């Protein structure tokens, strides 16, 4: 095992800020993209249904 404790793990041998700063922003970036893509798909579907109601009238 590389890490003696969880404290050791989070400290990353003194590089904690840089290592976790990297991984946190990667995670946030991917999460934001996934949320954005889902919203875009919902919006696209909603627009079609609105348009359909217009033509049905």
């Amino acid at each position, binding site marked *: *095992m*590389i*890490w003696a404790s969880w404290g050791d*793990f989070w400290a*990353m*041998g*003194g*590089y904690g800020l*840089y*290592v976790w*700063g*990297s*991984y946190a*922003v*990667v995670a946030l*970036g*991917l999460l934001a*993209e*996934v949320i*954005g*893509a889902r919203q*875009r*798909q919902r*919006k*696209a*579907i909603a*627009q*079609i*249904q609105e*348009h*359909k109601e217009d033509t049905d009238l």
Partner: protein
Amino acid sequence: MLNIFQWAAPHTFYPLAGKLWRPFAVLAAVLAVAALYLGFFVAPTDFQQGEGYRIIFVHVPASWMSMVIYLAMAFWAFLGFTFNTRLSGMMTQALAPTGALFTFLSLWTGALWGKPMWGTWWVWDARLTSELILFFLYMGYIALTSAIDDPRRADKAGGLLALVGAVNVPIIYFSVTWWNTLHQGASVSVTKGSSMAHTMLWAMLLMALACWAYTIAMALYRVRSIILERERHTRWAQEVTA
């Protein structure tokens, strides 16, 4: 000639992409978890960089993807110009945001790695500058295509930018050998093999595969939205979303 062209029609590709994106998303998650486990709990401490080197497991895959996705966009743009298939332009557009994101992440993780190892967040050297130009190319592509209302004209203008901008990709890749730079040379090479410990290398390669799977899932997912946005007046689009 080929049955492939059958899938180039938006209304046949929409359900196919709908079936395909999920397995790729699951694959991406599984591979990422395996890569993180290997990278943080199995790979040894680096004798020069201590634990700080562990940024490599996201930095290198993100950088690879930033280049690969731009080449993929150029490939779709080329197909669009040659075969005039409607789907090509949509695929180019579906890839762009993911490419821009990976380019940003490459620059961000690179800065956070550069600070403790080189003593600076940023230098205007060939590798870093050409990667920044790649980021501007992605932003330029997105801005250009969203500024043109007619989707077919947007595809053509954007496709041209994707093709011309692809020149930058080999410049990024070879920048570390062509110029003197602070950035280290390639740790993994097709001709020379790898200079890394095996577990480190595996963690990095698994993460790269996870990023590939993520990008494919994301492009398939986003192209469905683009198809619906463009085909919203058609009967099939109204039926498929009902």
